[in-house]
């Protein structure tokens, strides 16, 4: 049985994220913990190492608290009517991000509705708050757009790095129920002539976990075109080891996953060792 976190900010209830959790519960019963993060934490944001954040620091007002109570009530009602075992964690006071990190240590999976997670805090997508959360959390996460089809097939993104293999392994451990779906293991590298690295070993590993597996070498530059390629796929979940590198390294080499998140079309499984 898995313990799954569902993170909400106080203003928005992510319908997509909840639906994903509900589908997971149908596959295998889960414990769903709703984590409600107040945006009041951003009042302290001037110490935050990101110049962007200060501009959007909202004030604490009663409307927000009311909104949060409403969301919690909605969450509880929806869990009860769908027969999901649930808990509510709220009342974080100071530094919400580190609270979320702590919650993640003791959970198997985190689900975030990426389209509206703290959407009031920035216009770029994924916003800096989400990026920071993804960079620091200690468990696997599924990023869910508001409108999606529950995955009927899986795309495993493999770039030859240890990190991408780690993500594939973690996915197999967490979702044994999805491992018999159609699985496409895609290798993409900026060097278009590079061959599939460690093909035999990778196939040996993947074939143990995924019964319906196809290996595929994508001959395009992943940083530029991966998001275009993947947007043609419907009812798919993308598995990717991402967000491991430090902020500085990310600055120089853009994580290709960002574009896919920004398109809001597919659920994405991310993790890093």
């Amino acid at each position, binding site marked *: 049985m898995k313990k799954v976190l569902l993170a909400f900010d106080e203003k928005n209830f992510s319908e997509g994220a909840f639906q994903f959790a509900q589908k997971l519960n149908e596959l295998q019963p889960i414990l769903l913990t709703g984590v409600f993060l107040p945006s009041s934490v951003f009042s302290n944001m001037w110490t935050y190492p990101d110049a962007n954040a200060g501009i959007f620091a909202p004030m604490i007002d009663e409307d927000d608290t009311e909104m949060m109570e409403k969301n919690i009530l909605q969450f509880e009602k929806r869990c009860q009517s769908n027969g999901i075992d649930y808990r509510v964690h709220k009342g974080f006071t100071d530094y919400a991000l580190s609270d979320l990190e702590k919650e993640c240590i003791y959970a198997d999976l985190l689900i975030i509705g990426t389209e509206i997670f703290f959407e009031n805090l920035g216009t770029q997508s994924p916003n800096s708050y989400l990026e920071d959360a993804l960079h620091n959390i200690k468990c696997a996460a599924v990023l869910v757009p508001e409108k999606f089809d529950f995955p009927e097939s899986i795309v495993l993104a493999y770039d030859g790095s240890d990190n991408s293999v780690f993500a594939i392994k973690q996915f197999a*451990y967490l979702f044994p129920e999805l491992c018999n779906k159609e699985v496409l293991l895609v290798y993409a590298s900026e060097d278009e002539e590079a061959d599939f690295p460690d093909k035999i070993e990778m196939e040996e590993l993947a074939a143990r976990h995924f019964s319906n597996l196809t290996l595929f070498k994508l001959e395009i530059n992943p940083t530029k075109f991966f998001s275009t390629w993947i947007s043609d796929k419907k009812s798919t979940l993308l598995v990717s080891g991402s967000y491991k590198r430090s902020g500085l390294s990310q600055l120089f080499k853009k994580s290709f996953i960002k574009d896919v998140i920004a398109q809001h079309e597919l659920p994405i499984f991310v993790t890093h060792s």
Partner: protein
Amino acid sequence: MKNIIAAFDGLKYAESTEQYAINIAKQTNTHLVGVFLDDATYNSFKINEVVEGDGFTINKINKLEEKDKATRYEASANFTKACEHAKLEFSVHHDHKIALQDLKQETVYADLVMIGANETLTHYEEKAPTRFIRDLLADTQCPVIVVPHKFKTIEKIILLYDGEPTSVYAMKMFSYLLPQLKYLDTEVISVKHLDEDSHLHNNKLMKEFMKRHYPKAKYTIMKGWAEEEIVSHLKLQEENTLIILGAYRRGAVSRWFRESMADILMRNLKLPLFIAHNK
């Protein structure tokens, strides 16, 4: 289905590794990979053994190398026979490059590695923890079970918890990888300082997590120094106990100043250890 590696030194075949690996593979849905580290720079003879009369003789070297080859062949044949006897799905890899590098590369594409605590991959005997094992633990890409010299069927598991993310990570990995074993008798051990209260670190979150993964776990909280309390508590355990801990997340320099719990346990105990770390 899981991909589990049993790693061997073909010249000093560790039977207990074979027994532990087969025992665990039989209980779980596993494809067992026998990785034989036939390092080309490592052979069983010493340099003075190839000196004959005035100098080296190719003949003698060839003869000794043939002998090593035969020993290595016999080791993998033993493994094959044992797996066939146990009716397991298995394969055998012979890695001929530098042993440590080869094994690290194998760990990327494996779910779990099992290896004997006394493996050195050199002529020399070393006391556990050996340099080879320490280097492997520092860089492995999947969890490792370090097994003692003598095989005992695992009948109890002990989880070490210190409130750090790595210790919880190890518990998660064990639960994902060997779910069949987590229904054994389970104990969680945590050591707190004398001036701390006697609740678990993050009690509420921890219990919520444990109830899903190890519902029958018993909790033991001790007071004092972790290094001393844990070793003395574990010394009372029978040899059929598997210890699960998160270790070796810190770098080598940090480990000089404060030794890893894994090293302490390997030195003082003869119990199998399940070690995992997230970087």
